[in-house]
């Protein structure tokens, strides 16, 4: 279990970097990190179940202006990582859906809990930028590189640390509950999954349609045409 856990923590650090400080390639999106963790743990089904739900919810959180959005980079890694760690303890395949439910809930709590941490890093960077400007005015050109190195190292360390604490705490608190209540949790997953997917997809639809009738018509036509094609095309 050492490799998957280390891979999960490393993914947490890399996702924290990608989310805002470095490149913003969307590596930090829950579906991408869940795919990486699915490969690392050798369990794709649970990883992708958690990844899809967290992804539709994360797609509508926008990092626009000075707003601090929910930290779905850490949330995605913690959610999928915790679900996979719990699922690895289950012998029955049916009980793994319960792990997915716990993973998604933990992912959302981690995403909400990460907001103050991101704000703290941003406030810390204020002091760093003031220091950097003063050093530049003194002729110390290397201050720019030093500031960037410090900010990147801090973001990576916070990402790894936060993922480690969330995962460890989640596993320690929830393991026994999942062991004893796996069937109920699996049943709850069958209720919560469609609700979550509906909530997330509606947010996406709202973002695309923007009260334009033509786009709403396009959505309806695509839905009906695909549904008919699936039903008629099925044997």
């Amino acid at each position, binding site marked *: 279990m050492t490799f998957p856990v280390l891979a999960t923590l490393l993914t947490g650090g890399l996702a924290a970097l990608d989310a805002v400080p470095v490149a913003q390639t969307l590596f930090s999106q829950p579906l991408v990190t869940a795919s990486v963790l699915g490969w690392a743990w050798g369990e794709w089904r649970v990883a992708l179940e958690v990844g899809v739900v967290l992804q*539709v919810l994360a797609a509508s959180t926008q990092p626009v202006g000075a707003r601090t959005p929910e930290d779905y980079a850490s949330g995605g890694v913690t959610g999928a990582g915790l679900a996979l760690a719990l699922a690895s303890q289950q012998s029955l395949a049916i009980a793994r859906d319960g792990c997915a439910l716990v993973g998604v809930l933990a992912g959302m709590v981690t995403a909400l809990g990460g907001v103050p941490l991101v704000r703290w890093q941003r406030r810390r960077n204020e002091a760093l930028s003031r220091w950097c400007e003063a050093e530049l005015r003194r002729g110390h*050109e290397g201050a720019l590189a030093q500031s960037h190195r410090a900010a990147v190292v801090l973001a990576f360390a916070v990402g790894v640390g936060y993922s480690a604490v969330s995962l460890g705490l989640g596993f320690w608190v929830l393991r026994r509950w999942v062991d004893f209540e796996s069937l109920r949790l699996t049943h709850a997953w069958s209720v919560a999954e469609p609700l979550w997917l509906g909530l997330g997809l509606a947010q*996406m639809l709202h973002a*695309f349609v923007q009260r334009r009738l033509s786009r709403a018509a396009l959505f309806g036509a695509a839905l009906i045409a695909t549904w008919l094609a699936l039903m008629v095309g099925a044997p």
Partner: protein
Amino acid sequence: MTSRLRREDLVRMALRSSLLQATWNYERQQGLGWAWALQPALDRLYPGSLERCERLAEHTAFFNTQPTMASLALGAVAGLEERRAAGEGPDTDGMRRVKSALGSALAALGDRLFWFSLRPFAACVGVLLTLSGSRWGGLGLWLCYNLVHQSLRLWGVGWGYREGPEVLGAALRRRLERLTRLVGQLGSALVGVTIAVLLAPGGDSRPVSFQALLAIGLAAGLVVAHRGRPSPTAWALGAGFVSLAAVWFG
């Protein structure tokens, strides 16, 4: 005026723009990252260390825009710095005004294209691939977004440098707006396809309970989308706990 900046300077600026938000903060937002990305151009233009440091310090002031679109502004400002180094360009105040105007205009277009259209569109592509049984949904999402994001980041500096502060002219603005509109239309259709695949994956209808709960989620989501608070995540968390309670006590 002959060009003093070389191709490799522009490439280095484009690569460094990946760290534009590394030191993001509430006071100067992308200011420090902006100076870091512009440094290769200033290294070339100002051989004297003291003058270069002074210019770099000036550029650490407040700046904010959509991070991908910042490449265009970087190129344009590098061109202005080149003129300034030759004694022709704007002074410090003029430079600040150009940066501010470019930053706002690029953010207005970039936020709509990247954050409100392309990002949810890429997410939808990834989710649809995964729901269709593929393991490559995550990769699909990543590629779909980066095809546009990395192309603009890498080539944007060159465009900005060639076009100058008029980089966001009518032609480019029209092209970006057309792309935003296209992504919005394709995204609307893609959400429809995704919901159909959820209702009947592979042609097998899901149980009525699943379909009803999906419809409830969609209706609730459309209501929630019009409200700023609580956030959609808080609503989703609430829906999760309600599901748990329904199973436990139902």
